[in-house]
């Protein structure tokens, strides 16, 4: 099983160093070969299980409750400006 580590890392927004690339490629390929095992299982007409509780229709009433203060909301950021979170410009024109 070959995995395009560079593409996947980009998709996952993970910066990879070049020496990491080779290591991960090998390790991930090994793991992927192992999970190939599932191909042996006949799953024709088998429903999927994405949750195990059997719960349905769990919702909450439309009621507004107090929010965090602005200070609290911003308390863990390293970069803020006038009550906003601040990042480097992301859109170039």
């Amino acid at each position, binding site marked *: 099983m070959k995995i395009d580590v560079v593409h*996947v890392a980009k998709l*996952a927004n993970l910066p990879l160093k070049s020496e990491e690339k080779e290591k991960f490629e090998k*390790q991930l390929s090994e793991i992927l070969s*192992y999970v190939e095992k*599932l191909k042996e*299982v006949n799953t024709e007409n088998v*429903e999927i299980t994405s949750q195990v509780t059997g719960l349905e229709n*769990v*919702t909450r009433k439309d009621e507004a409750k107090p929010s965090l203060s602005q200070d609290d909301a911003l308390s863990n950021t390293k970069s803020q400006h006038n009550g906003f979170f601040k*990042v480097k410009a992301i859109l170039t024109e």
Partner: protein
Amino acid sequence: MKLNELTIKEAREGLKSKKFSSVELTKACLEQIKKHNKDLNAFITVTEKEALDQAKSADELISSGQDLPLLGIPIALKDLFSTKGIKTTAGSKVLENYVPQYDATVVKKIKDAGAVIVGKTNLDAWAHGSSGENSDFGPTKNPWNKEYVPGGSSSGSAVSVASDMCLAATGTDTGGSIRLPASFNNVVGLKPTYGKVSRYGIIAMASSLDSIGHFTKTVEDSEIMLSVTGGKDIMDATTLEKKHEVKPLKKMKIGIVAQYSFMGIDKNLKTLLDNADKQLKKLGANTEYISLPNTQYATACYYIIQPSEVSSNLARYDGIRYGSARQNFGDEAKRRIMLGTYTLSAGYYDAYYKKAMQVRTLIKQDFNYAFKKVDAIITPVSPTPPWKLGEKINDPLKMYLSDIFTVTANLAGIPGLSVPIGFSNGLPVGMQILGPQFSEARLFQIGYAYEQATQWYKQKPKL
């Protein structure tokens, strides 16, 4: 006996009858942490000041006649549980300086039950690991032999209880992260039914698998903890309340998995398991072989579903609102993020994620059939006793395969109770008792009978 060596039950009695105070009890725990944490590395953060304040208020409440299930009891929290105003790192450099703005529901419940929080325990970063070695804050050591792994990912929690640094500790179990370290440390570990305990505020690993449990010295204590943490939470849409009937052990049938004898279980461990089986029979239970044919696919299934969900759950760590940049993820997190990104990506989703969700259905069905025949199932927790630090660290696949007996319970959403069954070359091992969804009371019943008959919990590591 030192105060910190007490069980919750014993300590509650002592506190109620004023034999000692919560401050004294808390100090004994803090003392033990100071003495041994350097070697064992069980705690990332020790909250000495807060703990003593909480102990003082607990003592006041006790004097005023208050009675709460954990009043004055020193408890440690896995550093994956959000604690308002107290650093919560997930064992990762990414969250090195993160101080949550809120408490997890379970933390709130434990505090409301009167507990004293002594600190935040070490773990494999993001709960990724079976050995405790993936922590960015250094590995936790096994108190029974510091050259060995304590099991992971809730390594610090298991070790803190085993070495009497607290009376109980919380953990999370996504693929065995409570049961494995419990068995490697001679303590009791409960992975409750998925949905029994709120996940709100606990840093998510794999949302459909994460189960919130705890470590205690005895089965009785485990039950006390669950009575506090369990129940429906309006903040977690996947929680629910359900009760299961209880019947006497003598009327119970306990299943032993036929396939497991072929799955490369360590020789000593096999003997200990056979002894446990005999012991249960002695206690009046019937044991019989059952079949879980799809178990052989469980690890593969788990290592698709889990990393897929991990890749999505770790996407929020972008360094903008909290934490540092994504390059600070450790190798194991990077591996799982990439693996999961790959298995969810266009063109691969059906072959991996969807297929795994189908196999998950089959694994769940295996249990459904089995529980029509038996009331509970016993299996080893790990195929081997604890291994040496560093032994599997460069072979992720080998590490993953140590989860083989534990992941099935997470895939099926059923509860599992890990109880000590003795020692292999001086290192503790355990068995897990599995039951249908919401059958915790039954597991406690079996576990308690076995524990009282064997008394393994009385053995303590020499620190």
